[in-house]
């Protein structure tokens, strides 16, 4: 009988642990992939702050590290480069190592340059390029919350806001399951952009050594 009681206690204790673990898992499931973040309660206030903070940034010069992860293949490739932005719609992304590749967006025009050739694209003539161009500009300028291409959830921790962007348009849904933008609270500039694909593969661009509102020539965006 005592034996039975003892085993019953063990079973009860085990059940309690299971319930506890399941409860923790369920409560965390909403943002399981964003540990340490909680929802922003006053979204309207955040939107105002984000727009106002971003408006103070007229230019960004930064280094970046990009990591592409092929989850199923347990493979990744890391590249580094330089990033420039000038209000209102000029962006240059230059991959330097271990390969060279340059993307320049200047208004409606885009240049893609690799080792062999360069392609000039009129963004207006290609809806996908138009959307990618707009995402990049929206993320940097703080206007992504107004984008019709995404449903955006906003979370925060001590140092950053996290914008989880779920594509609404069919063309973007074909490529991305979510895009996660982390924004520095101190200056409302992008700290990182994580692009998650349906396959589970992801690409994260981490910005570092950011210099804001410095003077650099417009020639950076010329082609």
């Amino acid at each position, binding site marked *: 009988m005592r034996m039975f009681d003892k085993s019953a206690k063990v079973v009860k204790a085990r059940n309690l642990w299971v319930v506890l673990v399941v409860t923790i898992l369920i409560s965390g499931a909403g943002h399981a992939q964003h540990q340490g973040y909680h929802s922003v309660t006053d979204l309207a206030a955040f939107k105002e702050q984000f727009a106002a903070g971003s408006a103070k940034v007229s230019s960004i010069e930064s280094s970046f590290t990009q990591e*592409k992860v092929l989850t199923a293949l347990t493979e990744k490739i890391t590249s580094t480069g330089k990033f420039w932005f000038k209000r209102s719609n000029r962006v240059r*992304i230059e991959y330097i190592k*271990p390969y060279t590749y340059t*993307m320049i967006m200047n208004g409606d025009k885009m240049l893609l340059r690799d*080792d062999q050739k360069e392609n000039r694209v009129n963004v207006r003539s290609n809806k996908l390029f138009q959307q990618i161009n707009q995402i990049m500009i929206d993320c940097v300028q703080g206007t992504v919350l107004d984008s019709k291409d995404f449903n955006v959830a906003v979370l925060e921790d001590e140092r950053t806001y996290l914008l989880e962007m779920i594509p609404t348009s069919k063309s973007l849904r074909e490529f991305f399951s979510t895009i996660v933008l982390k924004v520095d609270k101190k200056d409302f500039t992008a700290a990182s952009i994580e692009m998650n*694909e349906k396959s589970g593969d992801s690409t994260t661009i981490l910005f570092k050594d950011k210099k804001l509102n410095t003077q650099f020539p417009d020639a950076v965006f010329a082609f």
Partner: protein
Amino acid sequence: MRCLLFESVIAVLLIGCASDYAHLQKTQASGDCPEKILPLIIETSWYDASVDVLGRHISGLLLIKNMPDNSKRVVFTSEAGLTFFDLSFSKEGTFHTVSVIKQFDRKAVINTLQKDFALILGLPFLNRTVERYTGGDDVYFGFKEKNGTAYFITSKDCASLQRLEWSDGGKRLVTVHTPGSGYPTPAMIEIDHHTYSMKIKLTRIEKE
């Protein structure tokens, strides 16, 4: 005069249709050359990829990966990270597309990619009867498949792999060169299509 013109036209047509392999002499296989130099192993590597097809240019990163189950995967992504296609070649010789974006998802494109990468991975040379030919300074090792013949071509002394080729009905379709260091870690892979304008250039990336 009319007769001469007709003969000229016929001659041009005949030359145009002549087999690219008509000069080859079938010879007996001797020694261990095929086994010694067969391009069957290519190490897992990332490549900087450049594709020129019918006047269009695409670039990106290409991963060739040997999987633990001995299958091989070929993944092409943009420099900015977006996956364009992921192809799987099993050790049994089956092929399937794991994923492909709409822009690449056409039967002709997939068939071309399948044949090109199967050749690079050395898959047509597995478990098939080899026929040996000589032509000029080269030795051709031909492996017949349902839709053509795959060749790997060596120097006369079998010291180096010269190139790989796909042929069909005597016509050269595709040539693969690996200038610089060759298999199993080719520094560069160049794929040329001879029946239409398509070139793929892969340069091995040294990861940091």
